[in-house]
Structure formats: C-alpha cells, structure tokens
C-alpha cells in the first residue's frame, strides 16, 4: 500500500506531478488552484527529483513554456483556473497542431468573465469542443476525488505521450480545495536525457549526428498538406475514441432513470441516488471519467435497455447535456439540472429536479 496522506486536491495533483517523474511545471497563480504551485515551490522538487518549477509571467507564457519544453520530449505540466485556461487557448491549439505531449489542469471556477472563485463546471464546452481555433481535441479527464487528482496525473502523462497530444485534467474549486485521504503512488523515475533522446525521436533536443533535423510547427502553407495533417490528427482522435473512453456506473442495473454527472456533481448525485431509492425511485448514475472521448457507448447501452430518461447534473447552464442528446437522438427524455455561478447543488435539489423534469413531467 502506498503512503497515506490527508491532502487538498490541488496538493495531491502537485505531489503526483513530482511522483510521476514530471520534468517541469510552469504556472501562474489563480484561485482556486494556487496551492499547486505553492506546494511545488515548498517541496523543492529540484532537490527531490530534479524537476524544474517556474512561475511564469502569465498563463500565455506558461502554455508556451509547455510547448517549448514539451517539444523537447520532457514531461511537462501546468495548471490554472478558468480565466487562465481561456488565455491558454491559442497555445493549446498550437500544441495540438504540432503534436506536443503535455498535461494541463483546470480547476474550474464560476464564470463567465472574472466570475468568482467558487466551484463550477461551466468550462465543459471549452475543454471538450476545443476551446482554441482549428479542428483539434484534448483528452479530458474529470477526477471526482482527491485520490483521482493524484491518480490521473500519471495516467494523463501516459496518454499525452502515447498519442503526442495535450491532455486536460478538469476538476473544480470543490475538488481542488477539499481535503481527503489519498494513497500516494510510489515515486517514479524521471527519464534521463539519454532516455528522452532515445524514446522520442521527434523531439527537438539537438539534431542527432548523421540524421535530419527535427522541426515542430503547426504551420503548413500548402493547403493540401495541411488538409492531410488534419486527417492525420482526426485518425488519431478516432483511435483515442475507440480505445481510451473511461466511465463508471452506479446502480444502473435496475434503474428506470439515469443521472449523468462528472466530478463534484457525480459525488452529489451519489447521495441523490440514496435519497431517491429510500423513496422507491430507481435511479442510477453514469459518471463519465473521460469527458472527451465521451462515453457514448455506455449511454447508448442504457437507451437500448429502455431507460425512461436521463438527467444531466452539472454545475453549468447545460453543456454536457448536449453530448447526451447527441447519443440519445430523441429516443428518450434528456433533461438538465445544475446550479451555476459557484453555487453547488444539494442532493435534495437534484432529487427534486429528477422528479419534476423526468418523473412527473
């Protein structure tokens, strides 16, 4: 069993970055995730593993630092919260286009604009539909506990390098700030420079003797070549959709109604299940763990089983609900419930919405 600790979600994410053998973290403070860089700075990862930690001048700089260092084959990560993630969108698009692996954590807060510093899930569209320009995708993982804030870091690095693509860990102020018991995984070795050079021949870390130079760019002025590159990216995304979907179900076997919820909302929905079942309402939960690729097949399975309706429970005005509707295609009811602006819905409110929108309606 790994080391047990009581930690904030943000701290667990930071500790996991060190333990996953990350080579560098670049970031800029913003509530509710400043603990990530604060924790890293206090841990002196330079001494623990040789990991570089640098406070950048802005999120624009941080994401471009990921482009640079990630492009040399090193394991790099940043974290921020909603407004900062908005600033990173151009960089993320370049990173996706140039196929550079990296991990970006978004601890979402209420919006739009400066919004507030309370938890929200209103950055779903930005994360899963490609918030920057051009046809690209991020792999998006949604932890719903402090444990997963830790566990998803090495998983994200694995996916980022497997597909040479940016991966986002999307949580919210609740998961970032709350303290829970977490079992930390053991320290993994950082790759040596020689191993990086050996493993990632595409990386720009100095032209190898007797070989061609490496170029990382998202530019191609020849439209036919750029079209081809886009098809290449799409083929990669189809493979990810085929192989990397993660989700969890709870009490779906006998369910007449299903809530679909991720992250904090999934935690709240668990309590709603208990309250509902005490009243004899048979409700279950599908928890998407990857928001992109979306667990379409899991939802389809329950459509086929004749579920009476889905309720998308999310702290947004109704974003993920659109992805459920895309699967369901009108075959059964799909409704949305969620509080926004940093307000967290209660299990009772969710139950009430379930009754009014699906059962009674």
């Amino acid at each position: 069993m790994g080391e047990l600790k009581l930690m904030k979600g943000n701290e667990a994410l930071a500790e996991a970055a060190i333990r996953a053998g990350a080579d560098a973290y670049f970031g800029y403070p913003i509530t509710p995730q400043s603990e990530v860089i604060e924790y890293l700075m206090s841990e002196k990862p330079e001494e623990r593993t040789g990991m570089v930690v640098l406070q950048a001048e802005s999120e624009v700089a941080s994401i471009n630092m990921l482009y640079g260092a990630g492009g040399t084959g090193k394991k790099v990560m940043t974290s921020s919260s909603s407004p900062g993630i908005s600033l990173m969108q151009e960089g993320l698009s370049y990173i996706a286009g140039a196929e550079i692996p990296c991990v970006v954590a978004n601890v979402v807060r209420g919006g739009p604009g400066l919004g507030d510093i309370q938890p929200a899930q209103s950055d779903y569209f930005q994360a899963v539909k490609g918030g920057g320009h051009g046809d690209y995708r991020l792999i998006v993982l949604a932890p719903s506990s402090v444990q997963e804030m830790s566990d998803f870091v090495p998983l994200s690095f694995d996916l980022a390098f497997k597909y040479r693509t940016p991966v986002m860990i999307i949580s919210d102020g609740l998961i970032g700030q709350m303290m829970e018991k977490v079992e930390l995984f053991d320290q993994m070795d950082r790759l040596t420079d020689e191993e990086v050079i050996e493993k990632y021949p595409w990386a720009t870390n100095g032209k190898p003797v007797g070989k061609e130079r490496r170029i990382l760019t998202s530019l191609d002025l020849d439209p036919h070549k750029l079209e081809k590159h886009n098809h290449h990216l799409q083929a990669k995304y189809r493979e990810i959709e085929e192989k990397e979907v993660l989700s969890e179900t709870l009490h779906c076997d006998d369910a007449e109604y299903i809530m679909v919820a991720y992250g904090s909302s999934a935690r709240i929905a668990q309590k709603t299940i208990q309250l509902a079942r005490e009243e004899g309402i048979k409700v279950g939960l599908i928890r998407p763990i990857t928001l992109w690729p979306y667990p379409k097949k899991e939802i389809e399975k329950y459509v086929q089983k004749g579920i009476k309706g889905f309720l998308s429970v999310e702290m947004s005005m109704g974003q993920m609900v659109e992805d459920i509707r895309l699967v369901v295609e009108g075959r059964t009811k799909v409704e949305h419930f969620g509080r926004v602006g940093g307000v967290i819905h209660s299990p009772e409110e969710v139950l009430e919405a379930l009754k009014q929108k699906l059962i009674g309606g």
Partner: protein
Amino acid sequence: MSGLTVQDIVKPENLVYKKTDLMTDKTLSYCPGCGHGTAHRLIMEVIEELGKEHETIGVAPVGCSVLAYEFMNVDMQEAAHGRAPAVATAIKRVWPGKVVFTYQGDGDLAAIGTAETIHACNRGEKIVIVFINNGIYGMTGGQMAPTTLPGMKTSTSPYGREVVAMGNPLKITELVAQLPGTYFVTRQAVHTAVAVRKAKKALKKAFQNQIDGKPGLSFVEIVSNCNSGWKMTPVDANIWMEENMFPFYQLGDIKKDGQLIEKK
C-alpha cells in the same frame, strides 16, 4: 591571369567562401535584398564555427521569418506570435546544457510578445535573442510596428506615424539593457560587408556567452530593411535605413559583460 580556366578557379585550394551546411539548400522565401536571409546565415555560421550543430535548438517567430526552420539546419520549433522567449526559456530550463536561441521580428518581440521578452530578459534566461528590427510588419503587408519611425508611412499609418495618437517608436533594446538579467545587449546591421562582419562578431559573442554559462541573456538587435514594406528598391531601402533608422536606432554595443556602456 589570362591562362586561368573555370577548372582552375573551382579548385578546393582556391575556395575563399562556402555556404555553411547549416543553411539548407531551400530557396529563401524572403524578398530579394531583405536582411532576414543574411541574418539567418550569420547565426548558422556562428553555430557551425562554435561546433554546436548538434546541441542547438532554435525558436522561430511568427513574421516573415516564420519559415526560418526551413532554412536553418538545426532542430527548430515554431512558436506562436510573440511567445518565442517563453518557449526558449522552457527549453533551456529543461536542457541547460544545450544552446537555445530565438529569432524574432519587431512586431513579434516588441508588440504582441513584449511581456515574454521583458520577463525572459529580466529572469536572465541563458539564451540568445536575435531581434530583427525593420520598423514594420513585413509579413502581413506593411502595417505599422511598435518600432515604426515618427512620420513613417505604413498601411496602417498611411499619412505617417502620428506619435500623439499612435505612440512613439519603442526602443525595446535600450529598455531590456536596463534589466539586470541581460548580460550582453547590442545593435547591429547586415546591409554592408563591414556591418555583416561586425554583426557576426556580435552574434558569436552572444552565443559564446551562453556556452560559457555567463549570467544572463544575450540580446542582438539587427536593424534591417524591408524594401517591400517600405515600398522602395533594395538599394533605396538601405540608403533610407542609413539616413533614417540608424540615427534613431544607433548601432553599437549597449551593454557588455553585464555593464551598461557609458554614452559619451
């Protein structure tokens, strides 16, 4: 002399100049007479002479030199507009033993990327920044740059740069020289043989500083022409540059070995 044939002339022992292998054989995408190509070649010659072909990572900007990676035969990354100093910072931080440089235009470095430029300089990143100041946005068709001279006509200052409304040209090189993080700051040109020799010496010093682990960033501005953007012939552009750009952007070292050079 009359007995010499072509065969005699091309003998290896008669070779006085050879294009460095660190420039690819691709035809340059630059307008004839543009300074970008010369600046590229000088950087590559310096890297070759310093024996760092296999240890160099260059960062190209967005601007006319966005395709620098097509011509420079070393590992290269193409950065987003203005972000090259952040990209280079990170590369150097995770590969401190490598040689890292950025190549940026004035719009890239002194407008959209001002924050990244100043902060990389201020942190004293051990990189080289090569800054091509042609007083205009060449790539996008000749719009006003932060470095455009007062009264100078561009497509977005068609009646001349009006400083009250449009601001004064920014001497970002003098500005970064004030920061403790810069170790060597110089302004050069590449329009004549003499200027080319001086510029190459300055570039070599800049890269040597990095290789020697000198504390701070080396910043080499090259005041260059943009005959297309200025709407002049290459020859006229160089004359105009000497008469108008150089009095405002004075050539020479501004900071050496971490010390500002006193103006007499």
